[in-house]
């Protein structure tokens, strides 16, 4: 079961998405506040974060930057009303996993979440292997 955090200032959009994604066996948490999203991302371990690009309080790119600064392995998919190429490129440079335009096809989004989950698992596995290698080298076993 994928653990997903949905961040969007449209409350109704969050409610429907949460219901639909939960019906697809995803564990979904929602918030309308980017600042709350940063807090949640530090407290919980999400497989993917779906982030709106334009929000009050904090711009989506700014939020993405903060999220990646706190946890570079975090898989962030941007969902936006209108993405300019410039914003898209900027988002990818900042480490976004993907970018989707609203209205998005839930099938496509679900696939992207699953891919993000797999990517995260690979990264976690790599990190664990590195840690073990480091311990082995240090202890000289």
């Amino acid at each position, binding site marked *: 079961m994928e653990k997903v955090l949905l961040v969007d200032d449209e409350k109704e*959009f969050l409610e*429907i998405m949460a219901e*639909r994604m939960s019906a697809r066996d995803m564990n979904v948490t929602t918030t309308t506040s980017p600042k709350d999203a940063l807090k949640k991302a530090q407290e919980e371990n999400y497989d993917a974060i779906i982030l709106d690009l334009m929000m009050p309080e904090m711009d989506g790119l700014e939020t993405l930057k903060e999220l990646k600064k706190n946890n570079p392995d975090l898989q962030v998919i941007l969902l936006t*009303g209108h993405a300019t190429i410039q914003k898209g490129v900027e988002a990818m440079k900042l480490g976004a996993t993907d970018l989707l335009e*609203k209205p998005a096809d839930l099938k496509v989004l679900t696939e992207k979440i699953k891919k993000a989950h797999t990517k995260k698992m690979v990264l976690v596995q790599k990190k664990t292997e590195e840690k073990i290698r480091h311990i082995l080298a240090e202890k000289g076993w």
Partner: protein
Amino acid sequence: MNRQLDIEMATELRFFGKMTASISHEIKNVMAIINESAGLLEDYSLMAEKGMPIDPVRLKVVSERVAKQIQRADGITKNLNNLAHSVDEFKKSVGLRETLELALGLAQRLADMRSVTLELQPPSDFPNVITSPFHLQNLIWHVLDFAMDASGEGKTVGLTLETGPESVEIRFTGLEGLTNLWETAFPTKKEAVLMEMLGATIHRDMNAREIHLVLPRDVQQQLTDSQSITENSD
């Protein structure tokens, strides 16, 4: 003169671009909610096909949600339509109630993005003025844009009107942060060009923390009067 025209055109186009970009973003958000609502109904029908009972209340919630979004989209497209038609005539009699309501409707999402509340404080009278509707919207947006920056900790901008015999003042109230921003930031050349076209002036009331946009009741009359004053003084 060419420089003046360049500023005029760039200011007009930027305003149009800014408003239509904001409107299109909002329409996309509405479409996203309707799209997901349709998806949710599809989910329910698939569940029903598998023999799972569907609570009618859930269907009602979706139907109400769609109806609400249609209302929202209707308001957004009305604003877009009114903005588009504001360029039909260069000079006409415009109602200030409709003008201010449109200005707030257009600015709403941009205000939300800045966590600023916009409040129309209805005056006793909403007079008409003879002016250029598009340039008036443009100038109101520029003042509103600055006023939002100057709203300080209160994060609220009020709009009201004061009517005089020859002029009307649109007052932007509650600007707690006006002190630090005013001197260097506003009005710029862009606003000056629009003010000249509309025969308008901008004043500040530091004690009340307000900006007053003063418009002549009849822009043509005002411009003719000021021209004859200049000619007489030459």
